């Protein structure tokens, strides 16, 4: 689907305008609370400057972006067909649990090189299965997926908490609620992360653009009625799309345990809402894989710089959440603005 030049202009204008408003609002809030706006910009840009130790910071930013990046890539697939998967958080959590199970309890018995692939498969399958439920309910009974996916997030929180507290608790942890650490072979760094990102983003891009599934999915997204007349199976496409969407969110969960924490604790400690932030990244990137990757890297930068913002500016965690919220608000309001601009363009 090619856009007309006026439409492209509308996209750029709308996104630039709403992002600018969001940044201005954030700057105003910082200013009125007595924080320096240039200080904020300086700390955030300190992710890339000075050059000393830059490679450490870049890989740290990259690793921090993964828990948002994978769910966001998955959400593209669901959102493109108009399936409102709000359950990336839950899919991420079960993927995290599955990856932990492999990394802690199976890694000893597997040959070293097969641990990471096994974790990837386990996390993907767990996330996919978690997403399959709402998809089936939708195609069989017409149950609204917004509610089912959202509510399963809370179920996933309790499932993870149950596992870590009653099944997998480290007996040498002095009563502390955490699993034993992941096996050395079950940890990922920036390099392994990069391979996974390229694979996942490539999969989503290729699938959407070159496969029949991708074609059908886009048709359903633009006109469900037309898709039905064309004989496209809504059930099949929905199920496949949600398996991919949930599976990728599951990979996000794996990146948390394998890349960041190295152990599983209670859900509320493991995720500050990566799955929800994935929604922000997906909309900021306008559901285009490469742009979503870029948006996720930006959010990863904010996550990563958060502690420096605190240590140097005394800027609380709440401001980061506020910043993310404003970005989502901008991303969503820009689609409305864009629509109005396009209509205006057509009329004029």
């Amino acid at each position: 689907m090619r856009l007309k030049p006026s439409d492209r202009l509308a996209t750029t204008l709308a996104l630039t305008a709403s992002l600018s408003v969001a940044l201005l609002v954030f700057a105003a809030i910082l200013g009125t609370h007595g924080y320096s706006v240039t200080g904020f910009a300086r700390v955030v840009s300190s992710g890339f400057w000075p050059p000393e130790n830059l490679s450490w910071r870049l890989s740290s930013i990259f690793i921090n972006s993964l828990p948002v990046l994978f769910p966001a890539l998955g959400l593209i697939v669901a959102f493109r067909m108009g399936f409102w998967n709000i359950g990336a958080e839950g899919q991420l959590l079960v993927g995290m649990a599955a990856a932990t199970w492999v990394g802690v309890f199976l890694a000893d018995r597997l040959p070293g090189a097969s641990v990471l692939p096994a974790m990837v498969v386990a996390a993907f399958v767990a996330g996919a299965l978690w997403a399959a439920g709402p998809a089936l309910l939708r195609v069989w009974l017409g149950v609204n997926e917004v509610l089912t996916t959202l509510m399963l997030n809370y179920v996933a929180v309790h499932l993870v908490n149950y596992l870590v507290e009653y099944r997998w608790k480290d007996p040498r942890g002095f009563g502390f609620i955490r699993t034993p650490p992941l096996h050395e072979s079950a940890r990922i760094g920036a390099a392994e992360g990069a391979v996974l990102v390229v694979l996942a983003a490539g999969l989503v891009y290729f699938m959407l653009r070159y496969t029949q599934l991708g074609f059908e999915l886009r048709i359903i997204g633009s006109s469900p009625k037309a898709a039905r007349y064309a004989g496209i199976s809504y059930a099949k496409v929905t199920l496949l799309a949600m398996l991919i969407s949930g599976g990728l969110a599951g990979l996000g969960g794996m990146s948390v345990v394998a890349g960041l924490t190295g152990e599983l604790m209670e859900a509320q400690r493991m995720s500050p809402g990566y799955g929800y932030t994935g929604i922000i990244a997906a909309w900021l990137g306008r559901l285009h894989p490469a742009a979503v990757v870029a948006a996720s890297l930006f959010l990863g930068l904010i996550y990563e710089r958060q502690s420096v913002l605190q240590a140097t500016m005394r800027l609380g965690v709440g401001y980061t959440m506020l910043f993310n919220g404003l970005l989502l608000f901008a991303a969503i309001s820009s689609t409305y603005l864009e629509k109005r601009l396009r209509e205006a363009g057509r009329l004029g």
Partner: protein
Amino acid sequence: MSTPPSPSRRAFLQILGSAAIAGVLGYAAGSSLAPRKTVTTTTTVTQQAGAETVTTTVTKTPAAKLTAAWIYVGPIGDAGWTYAHNAGREHATSVFGDKLDAKYVESVPETGAKQVIQQMIEDQGAKVVFATSFGYYTAIQELAKKYPDVWFWHCSGPYEFFTDLPNVGTYFAELYQAYYLNGLIAGAVTQTGKVGYVPAFLIPEVVRHINAFALGARDGYRLVHGKDKDVTVYLAPELKAWFAPDKAEISARNLVDNYDVDVIAFTEDTYTIPSVAEDYQSKGRKVWSFSHYSDMSRFAPNAILTGQLVNWGPIYEYILARLYAGDPRKEDIWARIGDFMPIRWRKPAEQSTLGKVEGAVYLPPIKEEAVPAAAVKLAKKLYEDMKELIFEPFSGYDPITGEPREIRDTDGEVRIPKGGRLGRHELWSDEEMNWFLDNIEKL
């Protein structure tokens, strides 16, 4: 259902372009940070050990300026645990002035510790890290190997976690003695014979404090009501968080409303429970609580009997002073009443310093108008005895009569034999400190 947008490659490039422009703007706004320089001198010490010559190389960094990073698990405004650590950090800043760059990051969940600590080291040049939550220990275990030049101080962790790591020390301000004295006051004050405890987690540290409190409550109650009486200690379910004001309030109100409890001790990082007690007091019901880690009387001027306070300042000062002196040392600091006091000789009860700010662990003044005089006097006597570790709560002696006695758990098993005394392993280990005194009722 709206139409999902599907931008073309050019639209996508425009999006990337916008991001790039924003990045360039940020870059332009950013000013470069001054490069850090570390001067290192190496001193070689040669010792004659028998026939062999042992050469030890000690690397000393003259600490003209030292960057230290405090990692906090809660917000500094919690008025409890983190607030007290931050007061300790401020004390260190006041002592070492501009020689110390004392950074801190608050509200760091255990899962985020590794990330934040690495950032403080790699990005902010921290040479010493104070990790102030038990749950950070896995992060320290991993990072201490990765950064052998950085000193890591883990608060509350058993030193066995770090025995193979020469650059990790442990420190803690231990409160079981203070909890015993709190229990003594609680037992003397309670009208219902029922006191309560709200725990964050049932880890050995908290279980130790619960048992100390329950033991003190027993002794305080016997002191006032006769030696055959006992008090019931209702133990609320664990909150499963150090910072949980909402849950703590529900738990405290449940103890008062449904179990007739009128004194509540707790392990939670905020002033919630004292302020709940104050709320009951303002409605005419006598409910009491304690200050925890920092003086909480401003939140509950009427309801606080005493408490357990910690001044981390002297501990941080000591650790940093050794670093400045170029002689950091791996050790396990387990401060109790008397430690870090300029004079730790005990005084007669009448001259007791209970209520004074002293050492690392101390008690706020007892609300004497609400507490029977005999209990105040005994508390002062025992506080003085504790300075020299003469009286130990976890020992098989009755502090009222001086006679040997047995301490049993809820299953009737003897945990402290007559005349016995628990050692470090029994107080620390989760295989040992997993029992509850026989007057405790778990809810």
